[in-house]
């Protein structure tokens, strides 16, 4: 079966989607990613969708779910590399991916994740250190 590789980079996980997402691949990715966040105590996930030429509501929901699941496991998700045509279509479809952080490329996404780790993206870290 097709699988989406999950690479560990320091305390972050990098997921690059380069296959046409179908339902089983999507479900497997959610399972494996949550497992690996816990196993590696990852602080963040970079989800690279630069190879994805279409995001429909099913794939959009998958992206939202991954961000929500990661957050519950204390890891932030940044979606990087969305193609302009995909962004235009998603918004017109009615799906602006609320609650999902985005960056233009992997570099910018990494910078964002590191900044989050320092300051606390959702405020919990910040409050804890008060």
């Amino acid at each position, binding site marked *: 079966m097709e699988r989406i590789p999950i690479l560990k980079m320091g305390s972050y996980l990098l997921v690059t989607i380069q296959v*046409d997402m*179908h339902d089983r691949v999507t479900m497997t990715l959610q399972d494996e990613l949550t497992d690996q966040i816990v196993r590696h105590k990852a602080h963040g996930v970079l989800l690279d969708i630069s190879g994805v030429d279409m995001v429909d509501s099913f794939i959009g929901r998958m992206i939202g779910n991954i961000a929500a699941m990661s957050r519950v496991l204390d890891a932030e998700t940044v979606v990087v590399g969305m*193609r302009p045509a995909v962004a*235009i*279509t998603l918004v017109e*479809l009615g*799906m602006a991916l609320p609650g999902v952080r985005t960056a233009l490329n992997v570099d910018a996404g990494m910078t964002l994740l590191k900044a989050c780790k320092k300051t606390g993206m959702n405020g919990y870290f910040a409050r804890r250190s008060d």
Partner: protein
Amino acid sequence: MVILRDDRIDLHSVESIIKARQIVRDCAIMQGFSLVDQTKLVTAASELARNTLIHGGGGEMHIEVIIDGARRGVRATFVDHGPGIPDIDHAMRDGYTSKGGLGLGLGGAKRLVNKFAVTSTVGEGTTVTIERWR
């Protein structure tokens, strides 16, 4: 109106949704659609193919590459023999869902194309036709 290509794709598995997307993409490229127009049409087709599979219990997609005078377009028709939609206006609204999805399928697909038509008879099935022109 001239029909340059006329194909039927069986929609009975999730893999067939991917096949449908690829064929719609090929047709949009054949007609010289811009990348944004290709993406909109393929996304709308993906939503409707999934509806046919999940809500209609499977069916087929009929795709036509058409020329009407100076206009070049692609038409896709999704046919199922499932339970049908009792209230189409209601089903078109964003947020309407019968199976726990986001409810963007029909209304969302409509916004991505130039022409959108649904006919449905309860107990007999649903047909959705979309067209996008260059």
